């Protein structure tokens, strides 16, 4: 076996099998060592030196998604099934994932984050937009052309109980990618499988067991091993820990971090748990009803969110520091339910539940505006909590008055950036001018 000794050092000891690994390597919940703000959250943080991942601002993008759309047709019942509408699961989102980095995608259930993940792995064919990966647009490739690229883009699934075929042995599951792509001669598959099992902290001797003999955490490790088999460059992790016990969550997150460092894998990390995302992702995008409402580096997003939805989400996170002194942070309660994605509200999609909503919000959709070096927000009244401006900040740029009616002057000359990346210049919300940050 060609086991890299470094890998063994990085991962929990595997000699006694994963059971022992899960019991012995139990992560300790401590304060995150990179505490940024009053939004103190419980972060899975292991004793063996697992710190929150850092952002490398100069890393080139491995994946650039632009204006990605996925509309699912809604068919009428009956003999002739006409399309009577579309579920706008994902409606024009743009973001980039840096090489070897990780972008977190958070939002409520049904906001389209899992659909986004499945679009990138091309389990769905997108309705529109582009997904540039290594110079190729994943959205436009045929299934045949996609096959070689599938080696580089892999997926970890949410539910470890349905993601493993109960009739296949662990060896068959983890070795399947090798067989499908024919990259390794048949007689070498077993040694590669055992190597992978060791990498993810499972006993390599268990390759001939069936998934039902493993616990949830162990099964998720098997799923991770399968995703790693082909040495992917990008891993879409669709809520990889939300089905697991909290103590196991920390281990799996740590494992993913180790793997990211070891193999330089970029992650699109989909989750609804803000604490987990905060630990894992230096950059976070918040989705609401098929759109990205705010995207920023972790420090900015968790300490100074500008979008009322992000503020509401963060206020729902339990606050350890405040609880310790007997206080409690004020919680922003959102009224009502998420509107139907078949017939979303006009203008801003969040306006039906937003305390700031005014006339303009119903008339004009707010663009995803860059308002900081690595911060974009889609809100007419973007501002820090409690300091939202009275007049819409976007009115001048969009060429509308404060009520959303078009003005004679037309839109401003400055192009509204909505591409996947960040520009050198951005719109400063306070001064309402383009700036590069040097002046202020």
């Amino acid at each position: 076996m060609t086991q890299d000794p470094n890998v063994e050092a990085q991962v929990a000891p595997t000699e006694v099998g994963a059971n022992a690994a899960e019991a012995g390597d139990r992560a300790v919940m401590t304060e995150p060592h990179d505490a940024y703000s009053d939004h103190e959250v419980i972060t899975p943080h292991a004793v063996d030196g697992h710190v929150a991942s850092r952002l490398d601002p100069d890393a080139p993008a491995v994946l650039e998604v632009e204006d990605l759309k996925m509309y699912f047709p809604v068919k009428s019942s009956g003999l002739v099934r006409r399309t009577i509408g579309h579920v706008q699961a994902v409606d024009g989102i743009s973001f980039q994932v840096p090489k070897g980095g990780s972008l977190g995608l958070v939002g409520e259930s049904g906001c389209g984050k899992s659909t986004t993940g499945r679009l990138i792995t091309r389990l769905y064919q997108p309705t529109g937009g582009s997904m540039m990966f290594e110079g190729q647009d994943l959205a436009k490739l045929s299934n045949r052309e996609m096959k070689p690229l599938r080696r580089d883009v892999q997926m970890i699934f949410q539910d470890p109980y349905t993601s493993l075929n109960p009739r296949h042995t662990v060896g068959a599951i983890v070795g399947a990618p090798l067989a499908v792509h024919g990259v390794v001669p048949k007689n070498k598959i077993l040694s590669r499988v055992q190597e992978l099992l060791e990498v993810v902290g499972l006993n390599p001797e268990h390759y001939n067991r069936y998934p039902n003999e493993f616990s949830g955490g162990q099964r998720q490790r098997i799923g991770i091993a399968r995703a790693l088999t082909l040495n992917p460059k990008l891993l879409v992790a669709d809520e990889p820990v939300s089905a697991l016990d909290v103590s196991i969550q920390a281990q799996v997150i740590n494992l993913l971090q180790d793997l990211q460092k070891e193999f330089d894998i970029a992650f699109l990390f989909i989750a609804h748990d803000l604490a987990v995302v905060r630990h894992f992702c230096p950059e976070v995008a918040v989705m609401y009803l098929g759109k990205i409402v705010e995207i920023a580096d972790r420090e900015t997003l968790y300490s100074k969110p500008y979008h009322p939805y992000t503020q509401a989400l963060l206020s729902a996170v339990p606050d350890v520091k405040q609880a310790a002194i007997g206080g409690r942070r004020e919680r922003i309660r959102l009224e009502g339910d998420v509107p139907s994605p078949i017939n979303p509200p006009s203008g801003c999609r969040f306006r039906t539940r937003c305390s700031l909503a005014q006339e303009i919000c119903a008339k004009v959709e707010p663009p995803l505006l860059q308002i900081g070096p690595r911060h974009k927000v889609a809100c007419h009244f973007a501002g820090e909590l409690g300091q939202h401006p009275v007049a819409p900040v976007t009115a001048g740029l969009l060429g509308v008055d404060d009520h959303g009616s078009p003005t004679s002057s037309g839109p401003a000359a400055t192009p509204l950036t909505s591409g996947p990346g960040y520009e050198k210049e951005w719109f400063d919300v306070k001064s309402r001018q383009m700036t590069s940050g040097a002046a202020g």
Partner: protein
Amino acid sequence: MTDDLKAFEVVDERKGSSRSEGVRSLRADAWHDLRRNPLFWISAALIVLFVVMAIAPGLFTNTSPRETVLSEARTPPSSENWFGRDVQGYDLYARCIYGARASILVGVFAAAGTAIIGTIFGLLAGYASGATDAVVGRVAEIFFALPLILGAVVILTALPPSDEYFVIVFKVVLVFWILGWPTIFRLMRSSVMQVRPNDYVQAARALGGSPWRIVTSHILPNAIAPVIVVSTINLGVYISAEATLSFLGIGLQPPTISWGVMISDALVAMRSAPHVLLFPAAFLSLAVLAFIMLGDAVRDAFDPKSR
């Protein structure tokens, strides 16, 4: 090279050790359950008996089933003729033994054929969905709507008559294929649709597995259990359906010997010589019962929840 050899040695060791720990697959698990079920052993013994009868009737009797002694027609069971003689003076015991072949042949081929046809179309409709599903589904409904007896009468009278043993048997099997596949198709289709959304199927797609690979290695093995169970039960059902058709005179025809034909022949002497009806009917019931019992045992083993 030496490393490889070592690896293989280790592998063998592990195989042995994990077996002893009681690790087993779902199929092994089903077998484990089956082994403990007395119903399974009783039905299996009966089925083995009938199958041996079908393959080698000479083991059970030296009397020819076609040797007729008209003077001794309708004689009741005796030490010489264990089951007596029928209205034509044939030895009933010999004919019951020789009749097993036609029944088993029809049962096995009808059940296997419908299982294969239904499974293929079920996989196609369930996995492809959309237009394929709609077309196959409607066609299946047309066949499903045909009553068995009416359909069989129409098809069997339309087919050219023949004296060849296997042709006569095959005609009846063909009727069951045509009229029986929609049941299995529906079962398989719904089973496939249950398996398809599972993440392991999505994972296989994300890995770039071909549709063929996904269907054969993920969907089929996980969706086939109900088809196996129903087809086992159907074996018995087709045997009795064959007897029904033969009784009506449209299934197997003399000179072919089958339990259905014998029951049909016995009708004229039902009151004067009831044993002529009793013995073939008993064989038929026993065979049908054996297969249905086996089907039940298999179902319990594959799906313990439905018990």
